[in-house]
């Protein structure tokens, strides 16, 4: 049984991601956001469960579907939305956008537009902490599609050969754009790839935030008391298309219905009410705080200015 405080925090973060994505998709449709936008809707439990187990000393690296990781890792929402809008007080001064948000002050080493590329970068952060003897782990979020990119096995093997405090969290949402996982690999239990490299590996329900949290804690323990790396394959599903402009018609209805019935936000909400005895209005209180916060951040971002071309030219002077 988890404490009220803990679950409230978990729920708030899950909901923040949910509302963030939902509202930002609206901004996208209104033309405020451009470029690629890959929503994390439906997968929130993974980022939230993992990051709930991390401390400020730990590092994460993220994916093209990175808003959830960023938020769960404690990012400032003003700066996030400003970045999505290309504004000057965004995390990357508007130069990065959705696919490149990073928050190095909190150890978030960045989203990535190249599927799989964050894995070796995460291994490197883990290597840094090992050399320095930091009391820290590095979590790299990755995806089922990325498992077919060479660096997945290559970098995980490296982390294993070097006993690094590295946790590879594979968000297996069972599709890479429109390609179902069974078409791109014969063995759909990706966890076996970790085992084949001598890596302690877990396959879990990625929609259950507590299971994700507990597995991450165990992974951290293994990294610190035995030896890393650890692979966590968290099975989940998108609530929609690959990106904002993809209706996702190829998703199988039964699958989608099934995962909708396991919605991670609803799950935590129900836990608060059924298991911890909060009443509806207490939960709605949280809801309205979250909604308000995102409203304010959108407001902030819309009013925020852009980097001037003069500032930009100065910024790139040394390239």
């Amino acid at each position, binding site marked *: 049984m988890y404490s009220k405080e803990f679950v409230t925090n978990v729920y708030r973060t899950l909901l923040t991601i949910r509302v963030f994505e939902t509202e930002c998709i609206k901004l996208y449709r209104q033309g405020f956001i451009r470029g690629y936008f890959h929503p994390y809707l439906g997968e929130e439990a993974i980022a939230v469960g993992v990051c709930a187990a991390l401390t400020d000393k730990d590092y994460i690296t993220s994916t093209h579907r990175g808003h959830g990781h960023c938020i769960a890792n404690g990012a400032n929402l003003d700066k996030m939305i400003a970045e999505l809008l290309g504004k000057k007080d965004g995390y990357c001064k508007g130069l990065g956008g959705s696919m490149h948000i990073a928050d190095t002050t909190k150890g978030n080493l960045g989203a990535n537009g190249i599927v799989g590329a964050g894995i070796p970068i995460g291994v490197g952060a883990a290597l840094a902490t090992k050399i320095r003897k930091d009391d820290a782990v590095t979590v790299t979020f990755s995806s089922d599609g990325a498992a077919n990119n060479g660096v997945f096995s290559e970098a995980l093997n490296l982390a294993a050969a070097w006993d690094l405090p590295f946790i590879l969290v594979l968000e297996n949402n069972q599709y890479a754009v429109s390609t179902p996982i069974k078409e791109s690999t014969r063995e759909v239990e990706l966890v076996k790839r970790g085992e084949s490299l001598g890596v302690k590996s877990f396959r879990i329900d990625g929609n259950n935030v507590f299971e994700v949290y507990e597995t991450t804690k165990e992974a951290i323990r293994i990294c610190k008391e035995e030896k890393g790396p650890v692979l966590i394959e968290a099975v989940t599903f998108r609530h929609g298309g690959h990106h904002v402009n993809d209706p996702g018609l190829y998703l199988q209805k039964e699958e989608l219905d099934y995962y909708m019935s396991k919605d991670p936000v609803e799950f935590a909400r129900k836990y608060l009410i059924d298991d911890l005895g909060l009443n509806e209005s207490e939960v709605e209180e949280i809801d309205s705080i979250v909604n308000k916060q995102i409203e304010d951040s959108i407001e902030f971002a819309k009013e925020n200015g852009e980097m001037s071309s003069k500032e930009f*030219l100065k910024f790139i002077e040394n*390239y």
Partner: protein
Amino acid sequence: MKELMYREALNHALLEEMRSDDTVFIMGEGIAERGGSFKVTVDLLKEFGSQRVIDTPISEASFTGAGVGAAIAGMKPVVEILFSDFTMLIMDQLVNQAAKFNFMTGGAGKVPMVLRTQGGVGNGLAAQHSQSLEAIFYHIPGLKLVMPSTPKDAKGLLKAAIRDDNPVIFLEHKLLYMNKGLVPDGDYIIELGKADVKKEGSDVTIIAWSNMLIRSLAAAEKLEEQGISVEVVDPRTLVPLDKETILESVRKTEHVVIVQEAIRRGGIGSDIASIIQEEAFDYLNAPIKIVAGLNTPVPFNLNLEKIVVPQEEDIISAVQNLVGVYQE
């Protein structure tokens, strides 16, 4: 003649070559059922089936390598890489394998593969989805490099590329796919290595390709209104490069502006300039001006994105300066 979009012209090229040659097949991410992210391969699955229209996992290095192997083993694969930025994952297979196999086997083996990909800035796709990397391929002996600017060229050149016995990098531009233009009916090819004078003129030569060719033509029109007669040369294939057509134009106009979307430092424009100054030194009335992308990754912010690659105004003012300053 029929009016087609660039992407339709490419589609027709694939269709016709696959019909006429059983050894042609295509592979890439989401190219089968989904018809490709830029809709170039729509409907091909229906006609040719999943043995010849192959969806791949996100395994760029290996499916490109598989293209190389299939080509060596007698097929004619057309491999698609979604964004030219991702070619950075397949460089070993392109540079060390595909480009060199014919050479390393003393001519015994060959790699008749086409690598289709697309580059350039689009609409806020940021630093990892907006690069113009053609200069890298240009520098690798053994690779041909094609960058069509119009639907007609796109079709004729893709057909020629598929029939070529060597690995060809076929580099499209994300902003061109919806452009329309007249395309001859039926089967025709455009030989690799033949530049096209897209507009004749006498005061200055603009050399440009891919999307910059379109922008240069628009600039040339405005410049004509100002009384400056501009010739616009589209090399179409950078390797092989049609030096003769370029030099002929230079000898006529004595003023050269090269327009490239890629960053200035180490771009193809520099190489073309180095050739012109070496082979037509005495004809040049003024330094060759290179209008190019700034030396920077591409920013996400749309207004800044605009300033990092040449716009119509940049081309116009470069020509004005060149002709104005040095004209007697």
